[in-house]
């Protein structure tokens, strides 16, 4: 029963999307199936996480082909944590989208594609094979193309042309990098690659391959010189789609960076310095970009970029404390960013616009809702004891320990900018006096919705806010998880041993 546990989240998502495709026209069924399926998925993911937590890294060999020849799926603590987070945000977005996405869009297969996207995310987190990772990336981007173009408005199509081009370019660079890596080592299994890459004499070629991977995943993760597609496209699709994109899609890029640069290309100071410089510039450019925007969702898009910088900085510092900070930030960021884009969607439903200049008076009209919105907003800033505060401590400590003062300065600066941005958003959206806005015809305003739809929009926000609060107040537990993940990542022999078994490693050393 538990032998194949690693695959259950994948199989469940695949089953759900096939089932949903059979009810193509029956939107009300799709809503129910999607929400119920997502709840089951959370249960399965919790089961997987607790099993991994107790028994350590597990592998499944697809088709019973032994590694390093066959495709394998590996669940270590990092993968299991991310699968759990995907399930949590997936549940929230599934409920939110059944209320907020208009039925005309749902008819074009919104839910099946949404579950294919979750399938791709789970697959990318769980696979132990670099080419298989490419395939999962393609599943993710194909599903995301459909979700981002669904509806076909002008801004959406323009945004998606940019999104599409840059993402395909990233895939091509990824494919090129795999080709070079395969030419160098003759293997695709990540654990096997770790051993073989370490033994290559021609370090220059290895560095070039590493840079190719850095660029490919850098475009996906939206780091400094490669992020321009993100703010142009993330504010165009429906807010439910933006929520899952903002919460999870860039994080897959970060996950791939973490995996590749802690397992395959390790201990190269040149690469570490490049990553650090990219991180610092990402922190600056994302923060300053957010400061000047007026569209609420564009502000959040730039904040995504800014906060990717924290995670990359932790990866660049490459000490156990820093990696723990990165993982903690990843956990916090997935939940908060998903929540923030849902908040922007809710505000859009209430007022009919996302322009900060025209918004206002939310506290006067909806005091309880405003307090709910305050949780993700101030978690993002990291006002202690909310969730964004704890990972920054780890990152700053790691920066001090490795005596890279400029990284510490950039982290503090970016926190300050985030504080200013969020304070601005809070003051003008919630506290400022309400402006009279022109009433939009044929627009489903929030107060015109049925009670069940309102509940479906508010409930996921409450759910994610509670998770956020737990991350903040139960930081001890999350810190435990991240320290363990960091330990596993720094000491990558555990991973290799779990995949290949002891004998092969000894063979290799001889």
């Amino acid at each position, binding site marked *: 029963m538990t032998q*194949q546990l690693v695959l259950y989240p994948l*199989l469940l998502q695949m089953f759900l999307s*096939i089932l949903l*495709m*059979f009810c*193509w026209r029956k939107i009300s069924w799709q809503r129910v199936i999607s929400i119920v399926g997502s709840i089951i998925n959370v249960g399965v993911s919790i089961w997987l996480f607790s099993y991994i937590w107790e028994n350590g890294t597990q592998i*499944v060999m*697809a*088709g*019973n082909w032994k590694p390093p020849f066959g495709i394998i799926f590996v669940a270590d603590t990092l993968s299991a944590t991310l699968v759990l987070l995907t399930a949590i945000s997936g549940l929230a977005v599934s409920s939110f989208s059944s209320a907020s996405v208009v039925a005309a869009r749902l008819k074009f297969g919104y839910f099946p594609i949404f579950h294919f996207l979750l399938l791709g995310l789970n697959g990318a987190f769980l696979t132990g094979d670099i080419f298989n990772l490419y395939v999962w990336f393609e599943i993710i981007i194909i599903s995301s193309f459909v979700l981002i173009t669904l509806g076909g408005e002008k801004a959406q199509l323009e945004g998606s042309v940019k999104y599409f081009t840059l993402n395909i370019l990233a895939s091509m660079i990824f494919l090129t990098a795999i080709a070079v890596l395969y030419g160098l080592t003759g293997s695709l299994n990540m654990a096997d690659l770790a051993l073989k890459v370490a033994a290559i004499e021609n370090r220059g070629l290895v560095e070039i391959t590493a840079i190719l991977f850095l660029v490919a995943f850098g475009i996906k993760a939206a780091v400094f010189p490669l992020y321009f597609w993100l703010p142009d496209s993330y504010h165009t699709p429906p807010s439910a789609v933006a929520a899952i994109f903002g919460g999870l899609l860039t994080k897959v890029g970060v996950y791939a960076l973490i995996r590749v640069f802690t397992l395959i290309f390790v201990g190269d100071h040149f690469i570490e310095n490049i990553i650090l410089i990219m991180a610092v510039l990402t922190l600056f450019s994302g923060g300053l970009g957010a400061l000047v925007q007026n569209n609420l969702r564009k502000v959040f898009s730039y904040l995504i970029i800014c906060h990717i910088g924290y995670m990359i900085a932790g990866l660049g510092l490459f000490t156990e404390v820093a990696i723990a900070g990165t993982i903690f930030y990843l956990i916090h960021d997935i939940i908060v960013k998903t929540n923030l884009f849902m908040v922007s969607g809710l505000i859009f439903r209430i007022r009919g616009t996302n322009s900060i200049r025209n918004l206002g008076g939310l506290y006067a009209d909806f005091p309880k809702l405003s307090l709910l919105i305050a949780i993700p907003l101030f978690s993002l800033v990291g006002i202690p004891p909310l969730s964004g505060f704890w990972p920054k401590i780890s990152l700053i400590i790691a920066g001090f320990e490795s005596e890279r003062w400029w990284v510490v300065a950039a982290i503090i600066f970016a926190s300050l900018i985030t504080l200013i941005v969020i304070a601005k958003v809070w003051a003008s959206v919630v506290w400022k006096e309400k402006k009279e806005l022109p009433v939009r015809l044929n627009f489903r305003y929030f107060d015109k919705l049925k009670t069940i739809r309102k509940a479906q929009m508010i409930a996921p926000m409450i759910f994610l806010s509670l998770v956020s609060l737990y991350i903040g107040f139960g930081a001890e537990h999350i810190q435990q998880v991240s320290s363990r993940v960091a330990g596993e990542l720094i000491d990558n022999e555990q991973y290799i041993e779990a995949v290949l078994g002891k004998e092969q490693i000894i063979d290799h050393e001889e």
Partner: protein
Amino acid sequence: MKTIILRTASTYLLPVLLLFSIFILLRGHYSPGGGFVGGLIASIAFVLHSFARGLDNTKDLLKIHPGFLMPVGLALAFLAGVTPVIFFDQPYMTGLWYPEHLPVLGSLGTALFFDLGVYLVVVGVTLTIIFTISESA
């Protein structure tokens, strides 16, 4: 494209091409061929028919919307993959084989059903794409 030669030929070519696509599908396990190529050949058969007879005739011939083949094919491939997990506690996608030798098919195993699923998905996807492009043109 409405020449009498093409129109007459397409009537005979459609069954021949479909039969050929099945042949390609079945020989695919050890020889060149398989679900993807077979599916492409089958969809070419229908595309050729639609060139000669017009899109509406081909749609009437198909009876169902080609998009419906996608979930059916996916479900078939998925079941072929999970059968070893559910019934034999083997890893996902492990090949299971029926021990006896069958006429025409040769050996029967889960791989055939997986390929059949791929075949259906490819036919469904290709026809949906081409019909969409030619409808809105």
